[in-house]
């Protein structure tokens, strides 16, 4: 007798549990969909400010940056993504000085660990959130961050100009 009760109670609890599952999907059928319509929603898409998508070197209106080409970022990078070439010049006062000639960064190699940014003593580089940087050739992933003809911001100016925007 008990096995017969078991048979039927098993049958009905089973059916009830299945109905419970179906009620959930039925409810979900009418809920708001969560998919983001990416290329269409580009205008309204909010990417968080801290999102690390691309390394940039901010330049001010005078085409000046803060990089002293000290090479700390290059040293800290775990997998050799950053490559700095610098040259020695003589300033007007006759002092020897190292200036940045090319700051190259390989997007394809970068693991976005942020070590370069946090170790930079002069806040010359930062990550920004422009995430659409897919390209068709690998070579294009190697970017030069300093702009053409840019130079180091003088110390005096740094106190006046807002830093690293």
């Amino acid at each position, binding site marked *: 007798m008990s096995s017969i009760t078991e048979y039927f109670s098993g049958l009905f609890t089973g059916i009830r549990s299945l109905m419970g599952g179906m009620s959930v999907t039925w409810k979900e059928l009418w809920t708001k*969909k969560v998919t983001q319509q990416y290329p269409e929603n580009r205008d309204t898409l909010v990417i968080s400010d801290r999102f690390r998508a691309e390394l940039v070197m901010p330049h001010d209106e005078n085409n000046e940056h803060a990089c002293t080409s000290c090479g700390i970022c290059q040293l800290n990078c775990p997998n050799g993504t950053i490559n700095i070439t610098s040259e020695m010049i003589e300033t007007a006062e006759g002092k020897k000085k190292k200036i940045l000639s090319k700051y190259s960064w390989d997007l394809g190699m970068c693991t976005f660990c942020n070590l370069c940014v946090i170790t930079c003593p002069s806040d010359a580089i930062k990550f920004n959130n422009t995430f659409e940087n897919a390209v068709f050739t690998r070579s294009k992933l190697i970017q030069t961050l300093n702009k053409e003809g840019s130079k180091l911001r003088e110390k005096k100016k740094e106190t006046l100009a807002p830093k690293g925007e």
Partner: protein
Amino acid sequence: MLLNYSHPLEISNLTTWLDTTLRSSMPEFWVLFIEFALVIVALLTAYAVIALILIYAERKITAFFQARYGPNRVGKWGLLQSLADMIKILLKEIVKITRSDRFLFFAAPFFMIVASMATFGAIPFGKGLLAVDFNIGVLYVTAVSSVGIIGVLLAGWSSNNKYSMIGAMRSGAQFVSYELSAGFALMTIVVLAGTMQFSELIEGQRYCWNIFNGHISSIIAFVIYLISGHAETNRGPFDLPEAESELTAGYHTEYSGLQFGFYYLAEYLNMFIIASIATTVFLGGFLPIQVQGWDAFNGIMDFIPSYVWFFAKTAVLIFLSLWVRWSFPRLRIDQLLNLEWKYLLPINLVNIVVMVILVLTGLTLKDLFGII
């Protein structure tokens, strides 16, 4: 003529007119020949179109169950998506498997498609839209639709792939078991209706659908038919032969291009066939909702063409099948066989006996309330 005007949207008007015109100008043989050709073309087109619509519908409904939008890039609301997929599948290369049994490998998809095609042809889509009206229609449909399993078994065997083989073996066990239940469920209704001919089956349901006529017994038969029909189409939660998380794609793992397309089409069409047979046998087929005595109401309902009724009822059943598919996890092979042999089949056997008693003792709704 009066009948024609009262049903201006029926396709049967067109077919009758065509028949009369042809007969007036040609000998009998040629009339039949042309009509056969036309019927074949119409069925083939319908076959493809219905499959495309179903694929689109499933993808869209599934997406909505899953808090997504589904296809929405090709055409408005993604309406052209399945068309695009069809073109893609037609253009794709058919990969030749080196160590497969070449002949059987190529033959297998045809078994599948022929079986579903042959069943599809026997479905009454609307008034006068029945290609062939056997007096054993129900039996024919059950018999022919089982040929598809040969396609699955051959595919699994000839692919020379262990995953395919396991999928095919599962499929065999599943199909043989559930065919039994599906058949018995239909037989229950045959007992009730006293006929196996689709046209008579439908005509008998004008004022009282079979599902109501045999009340308890009919409803049980209906549910069992839906479950076992669903299982026969190899769709989740009974998709063990494919079981993508276990067997990658089961029996059709090695198929590509159009051959895969055949399986794909047949799967969707089988879903449609199961739903339409359920409609025909249980839900009054293409007949509109009619209540005895409410002539005005009946008139309005009758104005809606019969094929619309047919497709609407079928669509409801298909939606039900999708809903189930996307709500449940997959069964294991022993759970699957348990369900059939320990639950469905015994219930079914008892159910037939109950139905016989209902019919003999006059306890059907028709008998109780004197409905025609």
